[in-house]
C-alpha cells in the first residue's frame, strides 16, 4: 500500500534531485540531463559574478524574517484579543472574516492590490487626493514594498495563525486565571503574566519551524504581485523568482540550475540547524 506513493516520490522528487548535476553542466537539449557536457563550477562563478547572488540572498532573508516576525506578532495579538471576546456571534463573524484571505489565490490578491495601489484609479491615491496630498507611484517606488509585502503576508495568514495560537490559549488551565482573579489581577496583568508566557513554547516551535523555510520565498506572492516589473526588481527579487526567470524567461539553464542548487543547499543547512535547535529546546517537537 506504500508502493503508489513511493513510485510518485521517486519519479517526481528523487529523480529530479539527481538532475542537480545540471548545475555542473552546460545543458543541451540533445544531451539531456544526463548527457550534457561538464563545465565544472562555471555556472556558479557566473551566478556569483552576476552580482545577483548577494542581492537575492539578502532579499530572501530580509523578507522572510519580516514575514515571520510580523506573522507571529499579529497572530498572537489576534488570538489574545479574540479569546477575550464574549459575544459568540461577534467572535464567529470576525474569525470567519479573518480566515477569508487564506482561501483566495495570490492571483486574486494581486487584483486587490491593484485596486488599492494603482496610480491612476487606486483607492489609496483617491484618499490622498481628497486630503490634497500628492499621488504616490507605488508600482515604481521600491521602499514601499518592504512594508506592503509583509503587510499582505500577514493579511493572508493572520486567520490561520490566530487559530493556531487560539488553540494553545484554550488549552491553558482556567484555574490559573481564576486564582489570578482572586488575587486581584487586572485583565492586562493576566495577559502579560499568564497568557503570553504560556504561549511561549508554541511560539518558539513555530518560529523555529518557520526558520526552516527561510530560504524558500513565497514565490506565488512575489510573482503575482511584482511579476517582471523591472523598476522593483532590486528590492523584490528573491531566489525563487530569479531561478524562475532564468529558466522560463531567458532559458538560461546554467543560471537556473546553479541558483536552484544554491537554494537547496542553503535550505538544507538552515533546516538542519533549526531542527538541532528544536531538539535542544524540546526533543518531542523535533522533526527528525
Amino acid at each position: 500500500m506504500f508502493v503508489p506513493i513511493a513510485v510518485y516520490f521517486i519519479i517526481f522528487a528523487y529523480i529530479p534531485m539527481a538532475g542537480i548535476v545540471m548545475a555542473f553542466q552546460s545543458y543541451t537539449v540533445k544531451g539531456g540531463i544526463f548527457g550534457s557536457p561538464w563545465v565544472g563550477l562555471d555556472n556558479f562563478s557566473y551566478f556569483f559574478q552576476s552580482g545577483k547572488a548577494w542581492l537575492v540572498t539578502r532579499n530572501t532573508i530580509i523578507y522572510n524574517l519580516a514575514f515571520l516576525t510580523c506573522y507571529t506578532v499579529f497572530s498572537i495579538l489576534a488570538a489574545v484579543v479574540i479569546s477575550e471576546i464574549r459575544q459568540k456571534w461577534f467572535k464567529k463573524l470576525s474569525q470567519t472574516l479573518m480566515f477569508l484571505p487564506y482561501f483566495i489565490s495570490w492571483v486574486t490578491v494581486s487584483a486587490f492590490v491593484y485596486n488599492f495601489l494603482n496610480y491612476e484609479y487606486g483607492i489609496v491615491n483617491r484618499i490622498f487626493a481628497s486630503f490634497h496630498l500628492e499621488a504616490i507611484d507605488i508600482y515604481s517606488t521600491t521602499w514601499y514594498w518592504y512594508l506592503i509585502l509583509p503587510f499582505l503576508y500577514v493579511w493572508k495568514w493572520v486567520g490561520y495563525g490566530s487559530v493556531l495560537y487560539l488553540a494553545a490559549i484554550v488549552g491553558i488551565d482556567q484555574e490559573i486565571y481564576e486564582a489570578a482573579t482572586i488575587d486581584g489581577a487586572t485583565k492586562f496583568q493576566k495577559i502579560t503574566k499568564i497568557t503570553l508566557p504560556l504561549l511561549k513554547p508554541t511560539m518558539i516551535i513555530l518560529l523555529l519551524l518557520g526558520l526552516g523555510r527561510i530560504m524558500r520565498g513565497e514565490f506565488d506572492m512575489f510573482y503575482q504581485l511584482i511579476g517582471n516589473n523591472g523598476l522593483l526588481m532590486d528590492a523584490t527579487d528573491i531566489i525563487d523568482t530569479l531561478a524562475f526567470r532564468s529558466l522560463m524567461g531567458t532559458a538560461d539553464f546554467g543560471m537556473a540550475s546553479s541558483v536552484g542548487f544554491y537554494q537547496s543547499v542553503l535550505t538544507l543547512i538552515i533546516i538542519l540547524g533549526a531542527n538541532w535547535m528544536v531538539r535542544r529546546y524540546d526533543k518531542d517537537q523535533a522533526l527528525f
Partner: protein
Amino acid sequence: MITIDSNSVNPKLNSAPLFTAIAYTIVGLIALICVLPFIVLVSGAFSSESAILQEGYWFWPRDFSLEAFSYIFRYPADLLNGYKVSIIVTVVGTVLSLFISMMAAYVLSRKDLKHRNALSFFLFFTTLFNGGLAPYYIWISRNLDLTNTYAVLILAPMFNVMYILILRSFIRGSVPEPLLESAKIDGAGDFRIFLKIVLPLTKPALASIGVFTALAYWNDWWTAMMFTNKDHLIPLQYLLYKMLSSINLSAAMSQHVSNLDMPKETFKLAMTVIATGPIVLIFPFVQKYFVSGITIGAVKG
C-alpha cells in the same frame, strides 16, 4: 496588590470595560481590514467603466452597471472551460491524493512495520532538499513528456508530506490497535481493514485534509503556467492571471474578445469576482474543517 480587606477589591475591576472595548476594537479592525478588499473588488465590478476611469475604485459601486458581466457572458467559452478544467483537476486530484496519502499514512502508522521511520524520512526528505526548478521542469516536460496533459495538472501538486504525517498521527490516535488485530484474526486482509475500518474511523481528518488539498488544487496556477500552453487546458486561476497581467485582453482570451471598446478595468474585476466567488460562497461551510485541520496538525505534525 495584596489587600487585607477582600471587599476592597473592586469586582468591576475584573470585568474591565475599557479592556473589553479595546479587544472588540482590535478584533473588529483586523476583521474589517481582511474583508475590505473583497468589498472594493465587488464594488468595482459593479461600477461602470467610465466611473472607474474618472473617479477610480471605491468602497461602493459608483454608477451601478452590469456592463462588465454582460460582456463576459456574451462569450463565456473561456470562462466555462476554465471552470471545467479546474473542477476536473480538483475533484480527481483531491480524491486520488487523499486515497494514496491515506494508504501511505496507514502503512506508516502500523507499529509492526519495520523501517517505518526510514519510510517517513523517505517522504520527509523531499521537503528538505530538491533538485531545484530547472531539473524538475526539464524532467517533467522533456523526459516524461507530460506537457499539455491533465495528468501533469493533477500529478504535479499532488502531495503534501505534512498532510501525510498529520494523517499518520491521526490514525494512531483514533484507530485502536486491538480493533485492527481482531479484524486480522477474523481473516480480513490489510486492504480490507484499511477500507472498512481505518477510512470510516478517520473521517474528520479526511474531511479536513481533503478540504486543504482541494483548495491547493483550486488555487494552483503555477503548474498550468509551467506545463501547458493549450487553451483547453487552462484552469480558472491561470486564466485569471493571464487576463489580469495582460494589457491587451484579447491576447489572453482566445478569439472572441478583441473588441476595442470593451470595459477593460471593470472586465478584469468582474472576471476576478466570477473566478473567486465560488470559493468565498462555500467558505463558511468548510471553514470548520480548516480549523480542525489546523488544530489536528498543531498537536503534532
